[in-house]
């Protein structure tokens, strides 16, 4: 066997699962050790993790920086709220299904327009379209409740579990595990997608668009599919977020929230698969404690971002990976 054939043997699709099982065990065990507040805080982090995971399919794998992912998060959240308001739905499964359908429709149209452009033009267009949705949520108050937003009561999980008793207890146990299960499924699905032949094609488009076209890849079509998948993940996160928050307001459609998704992803490291998830969880803690600590929390986060970009351009996960390989090679 040549060295290359040996190298082939070494490639195992399951080898990267090493980190996944211990991480899942910790997340499952957490509600027993942490208090309710901490568990709910983590549920928010996991939800943002799903959003960032979806976002990074575009940034990290396809090379497109979207500045409008708040739109899809918002479509997910508002479709749940509108299902409550107009259809009296309480089933969480129906909420998720409705949110996915709404997100597929919106991202299919938005994506069709956006993937015709790349770089800054793509970013500006995604942002402009998200602002359109934001202003709709803002102005059509008789439908969306305007700045007051729409209330969403605790849903029924799997047709049996309800938050009829202690709402906090429900959110910190049943709902937490519900979120965790969907988070785990989302991570697994995204992991397969980025490691699929399709995922390879996206990375090829990111690295060299012209050559990708000349191995027969239909650039725009693939970008569009990536956009769709990305938007649906983020929309699913929005749908999970709204019962936890109990309320959706136009703020989550605003472009500044898109900025937060970008921030999370860069914080964790967009060049790695786990980066956006870690970044989202860390960002969620950072923001929560910064808001509690000072009214100038945005200033604090701004400083963190500057330090990050200057000193740790590969993000938390990228830096950790570098230190880890350095230690092992020593």
């Amino acid at each position: 066997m040549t060295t290359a054939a040996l190298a082939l043997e070494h490639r195992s699709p399951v080898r990267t699962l090493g980190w996944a099982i211990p991480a899942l065990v910790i997340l499952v065990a957490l509600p027993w050790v942490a208090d309710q507040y901490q568990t709910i805080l983590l549920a928010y982090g996991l939800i943002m993790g799903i959003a960032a995971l979806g976002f990074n399919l575009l940034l990290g794998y396809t090379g497109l920086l979207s500045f409008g992912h708040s739109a899809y998060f918002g479509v997910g959240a508002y479709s749940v709220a509108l299902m409550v308001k107009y259809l009296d739905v309480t089933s969480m499964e129906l909420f998720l299904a409705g949110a996915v359908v709404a997100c597929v429709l919106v991202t299919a149209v938005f994506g069709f327009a956006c993937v015709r452009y790349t770089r800054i033009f793509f970013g500006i267009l995604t942002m402009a379209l998200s602002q359109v949705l934001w202003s709709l949520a803002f102005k059509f108050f008789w439908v969306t409740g305007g700045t007051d937003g729409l209330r969403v009561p605790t849903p029924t999980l799997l047709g049996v579990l309800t938050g009829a008793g202690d709402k906090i207890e429900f959110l910190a146990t049943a709902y937490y595990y519900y979120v965790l299960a969907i988070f785990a499924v989302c991570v697994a699905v995204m992991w397969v997608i980025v490691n699929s032949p399709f995922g390879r094609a996206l990375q090829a488009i990111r690295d060299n668009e012209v050559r990708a076209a000349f191995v027969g890849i239909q650039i725009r079509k693939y970008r569009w599919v990536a956009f769709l998948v990305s938007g649906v993940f983020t929309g699913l996160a929005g749908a999970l977020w709204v019962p936890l928050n109990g309320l959706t307001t136009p703020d989550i459609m605003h472009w500044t929230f898109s900025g937060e998704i970008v921030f999370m992803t860069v914080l964790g490291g967009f060049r790695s698969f786990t980066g956006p998830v870690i970044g989202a969880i860390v960002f969620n803690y950072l923001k929560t404690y910064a808001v509690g600590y000072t009214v100038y929390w945005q200033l604090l986060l701004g400083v963190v971002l500057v330090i990050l970009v200057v000193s740790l351009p590969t993000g938390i996960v990228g830096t950790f990976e570098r230190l880890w390989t350095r230690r092992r090679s020593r």
Partner: protein
Amino acid sequence: MTVLLETRALVKQFGEFRAVDRVDFRVEEGEVLALIGSNGAGKTTLVNLISGLLRPDAGQIVFRGADVTTQSVHERIAAGIARSFQLVNLFDQLSALDNVALAIFSRQGKTRKLWALAEADRPVWQEALEILATFRMDGKATVPAGGLSQGERKLLDVAIAYALRPRLLFLDEPTSGVSTREKAPIMDTISAVVRSERISAAIIEHDMDVVFSYSDRIVAMHQGAILADGTPDEIRRDERVLTTLIGTPETR
């Protein structure tokens, strides 16, 4: 011999400048053709038109009897037209093996699959490895394309195009930027592959030694038009080619 590809009165205009001027060009089944001409003669533009990177302003491109003039790049690739690039165009962060495997995945229509692991598709990796071996690159399979030498990058570029299993392969200066010593081995490798597989090849080349020793037929272009077309011996004796392109024997 049967005609594989034919262009009819092909025109490409860049503003006032006519880069390709009513060109009738053909490639026959199984031949290795050299496309020569000074810089700006329109060689690369012609290849860009045929491969689909540019759209012609007028004229027709016929490949295997079908009009492909308005077809998109991926349709032309599916029909059997592949190309390499003058300035090497690779996926630099991917290994040599990954570069070739991507072309195979694409050829087999597998890049449309979201729900499958690329790594688990053994036949694809096996084929990719075989293609690298054909180009004597199997020792470099795991090296990122960005870390290869210029000569290896040139070969990998051709290997990617070859992995699409084309019937017609355009090679845009496969030995440019490579030391004189490396040129012959690269051309030997490419020539052996295309001749054994009976792939038609059209090679843009500036090095006249390469042109005369590896091609069956030579097409010389000048100012967007075809100046001469013939066997290496005919071209060697062609007065117009000698004066406009090669220079007089004394200067060579």
